[in-house]
């Protein structure tokens, strides 16, 4: 079996994988990082969103071999010890979640939004979340959380 080395949350991880191994399987099954979720498994729901070299992508629709050598960040890599990432903190403060299943993907997508657009308006936030589905329909507070995080960052 081929071997891949992917730097996950700052740590190089080398594993033997089948060519058909999806990135999300690599993260969840080979590394035990189960914070990245599989929802629809058809690249529509966004529960599996991670960052590849800084941009957001759906890890259920990528092969582990495609990102051999890349830097991947998952939800587990955001907090520094006990200190939550500002986006995680904003989701907590604004109750941006109900059941929590979609939350890792929502947080990873939202961080990418503020990377490309640090001051999004409400419409831009909602459009950006087109690829992240919340079955609880808890969008309202998710949008509030992202807006709050953007505002806090603008002040900082």
């Amino acid at each position, binding site marked *: 079996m081929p071997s891949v080395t992917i730097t996950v949350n700052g740590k190089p991880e080398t594993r033997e994988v089948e060519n058909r191994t999806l990135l999300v399987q690599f993260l969840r099954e080979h590394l035990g990082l189960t914070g990245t979720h599989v929802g629809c498994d058809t690249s529509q729901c966004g529960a599996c969103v991670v960052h590849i070299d800084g941009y*957001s992508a759906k890890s259920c629709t990528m092969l582990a071999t495609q990102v051999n050598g890349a830097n991947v960040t998952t939800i587990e890599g955001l907090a520094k010890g006990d200190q939550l990432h500002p986006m995680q903190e904003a989701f907590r403060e604004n109750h941006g979640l109900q059941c929590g299943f979609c939350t890792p993907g929502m947080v990873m997508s939202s961080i*990418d939004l503020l990377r490309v657009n640090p001051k999004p308006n409400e419409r831009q936030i909602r459009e950006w979340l087109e*690829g992240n589905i919340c079955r609880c329909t808890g969008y309202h507070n998710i949008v509030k959380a992202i807006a709050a995080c953007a505002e806090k960052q603008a002040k900082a």
Partner: protein
Amino acid sequence: MYNFNYHQAKSVDEAAKLVSGAEEGKLMAGGMTLIPTLKQRLAKPSDVIDLGKIADLKGIKKDGNNIVIGAMTRHFDVANSDVVKSAIPGLAGLAAHIGDPAVRNRGTIGGSIANNDPAADYPSSVLALNATIITNKRKIAADDFFKGLFETALEPGEVITAVSYPIPDKSHYMKFPNPASRYAIVGVYVAKTGNNVRVAVTGAGPVVFRQKDMEAALSKNFSPDAIKDIKQKDSGLNSDIHASAEYRAHLVNVMARRAVQGCG
């Protein structure tokens, strides 16, 4: 997903050799269609040849009166390119509404065009803007490229390297997206260069096509009113769970008028 041999090609020549030499080779661009297809076991290639690491396939440049986009340029990069936004804003707008942000971060123009999904957005821009598809073997005119359902003029071992778009006076794309997949239920790209107008329709039929009655009317009078009474025939159009052929035919006219209006 069935397993397969995986190759990361370092050059277009190497990719062409690998795909020709394989029992059943398949080129992979961004993988946004191929990987879901493999997961559903709708395809069983012996070898997948990944084009992702070929640097010369990426990038956007202005070459005289053309915008040349490398085949492996991602939708995100086309949507946010200053060159594309100033020369062909309609094309940047099209790229900005493909799928969702995470899909636009992986999907590529070459992959979209080579796959020729009947509901893909990019083929309409190629046809309406009269672009040229550049491959490792030749140049193919837009009118000769899209042959049928998922079928193109590409030969085995032929690899798209770039798409060259002549800069129009104005152009605009308008789509009625499927609310779940964001694929076009109907999408219409209208482009005007001098008195020449081209109208390309995606999503409605088995393959992207030109609406020549609308083109003739718009060449004389470039306004939404000029085409309001031109009815798209529904025979041969797609009919499925998302929309009937009659509804799609109706949408062709609505989207075309909005696209003309969007040209400004």
